[in-house]
């Protein structure tokens, strides 16, 4: 079964699309590759990112179902929660956010929570144990709202599920159109939270008619949080759900690889990476959601896991919003970089 172009039509345009593709000349020359950056940090609209593509479809479905309330969940730093809080407000829906409680909240998390509150969302904290079984909390909240006569609509973790996946299929289609009806990338590198984007990319080469006969790229997921095994389980689950919903049996391809060595990078390593990337490339990537994956990719270029001659696409999946997550470590990292480059001696 394939997806008809109409199925990917944007009925609720919230993102500025298409986003540009840039070539990173310095790294391309250094490693003998062509490194493209897909700038989904430019989708705009309340801090945007790739999530906005999925939310266009999810919120359109919520409107179609005449939802009165939106429910979603995430970490205190979650872009998804912040975006849903903002977009729900715009669309006249109440928003309820299930947020994983943390022992201590970094300043960046406090900022994010304050934005959610400013936007009028109800924030419900889940303990670590409750988070492990968050579907229970979702079902209780859904029931409570229904009994009160509301029409809640649930936006799953990572915007996974069929409507959200349409946004990722749209991204792959957009890349194909931007490359003059071809998909020349041999490797696609993605920061993976729940695995939804990896799933969408893999699925695209099975269900988009224009891509079914193309050679799929190797998909490299750099996990931000989960173990590689858990991420692959999530992806398998998404395939199962897609198969059940569409009666079209599809499964994960062999060309997905997940690397979890860059998950939960400590603030010192993030600060050092920020300084390195900023000073060499003039880029400041989000230290929580994009930078770890970029550093992982740099490591793969260094050890030639990404071989010379490769045509690599790196998805810049969101803007830099969490600089404060390693603010205390930035000063020492800058000083260390300055010393290493000799600038400290000159000063």
């Amino acid at each position, binding site marked *: 079964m394939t997806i008809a172009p109409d199925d990917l039509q944007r009925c609720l345009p919230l993102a500025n699309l298409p986003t540009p593709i840039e070539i990173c000349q310095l790294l391309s020359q250094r490693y003998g590759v062509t490194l493209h950056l897909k700038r989904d940090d430019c989708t705009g609209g309340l801090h945007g990112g790739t999530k906005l593509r999925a939310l266009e479809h999810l919120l359109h479905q919520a409107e179609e179902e005449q939802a009165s309330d939106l429910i979603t969940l995430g970490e205190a730093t979650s872009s998804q929660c912040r975006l849903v809080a903002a977009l729900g407000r715009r669309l006249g829906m109440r928003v309820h956010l299930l947020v994983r409680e943390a022992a201590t909240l970094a300043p960046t998390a406090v900022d994010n929570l304050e934005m959610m509150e400013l936007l009028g969302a109800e924030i419900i904290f889940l303990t670590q*144990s409750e988070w*492990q079984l968050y579907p*229970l909390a979702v079902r209780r909240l859904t029931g409570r709202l229904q009994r009160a006569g509301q029409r809640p609509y649930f936006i799953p973790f990572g915007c996974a599920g069929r409507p959200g996946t349409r946004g990722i299929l749209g991204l792959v289609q957009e890349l194909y159109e931007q490359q003059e009806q071809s998909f020349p990338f041999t490797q696609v590198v993605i920061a993976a939270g729940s695995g939804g984007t990896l799933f969408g990319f893999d699925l695209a080469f099975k269900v988009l008619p224009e891509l079914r006969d193309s050679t799929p790229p190797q998909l490299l997921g750099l996990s931000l949080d989960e173990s590689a095994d858990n991420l692959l389980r999530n992806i398998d689950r998404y395939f199962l759900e897609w198969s059940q919903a569409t009666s079209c049996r599809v499964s994960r391809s062999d060309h997905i690889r997940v690397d979890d060595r860059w998950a939960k990078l400590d603030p010192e390593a993030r600060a050092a990476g920020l300084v390195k990337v900023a000073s060499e490339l003039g880029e400041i990537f989000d230290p929580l959601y994009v930078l770890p994956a970029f550093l992982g990719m740099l490591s793969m270029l260094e050890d030639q896991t990404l071989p010379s001659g490769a045509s690599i696409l790196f998805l810049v999946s969101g803007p830099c919003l969490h600089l404060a997550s390693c603010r205390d470590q930035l000063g020492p990292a800058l000083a260390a970089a300055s010393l290493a480059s000799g600038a400290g001696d000159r000063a």
Partner: protein
Amino acid sequence: MNIREAILEVFRQIGREPRPDGKGSLVDQGILDSLSILDLISGLEQRFDIALEDEMLTLDRFESISSIEQLVRATLDLAKPGS
């Protein structure tokens, strides 16, 4: 088959294997997580032909096989005519 054995069978059907002695938290042992909990609820509802009340779906009721057994018994009791 008694209720406890039927619950253990549902666990096996969803690919999870609790400790035979039933000791320890199912969540802490990684037997129940955000993926398997939905399969478990759906499996229990099918196996016992019940609809679990939303408000009864709290973490403590899924802490152990015994607490799940109590949840199932309570739901079955509620479903009895005249209750």
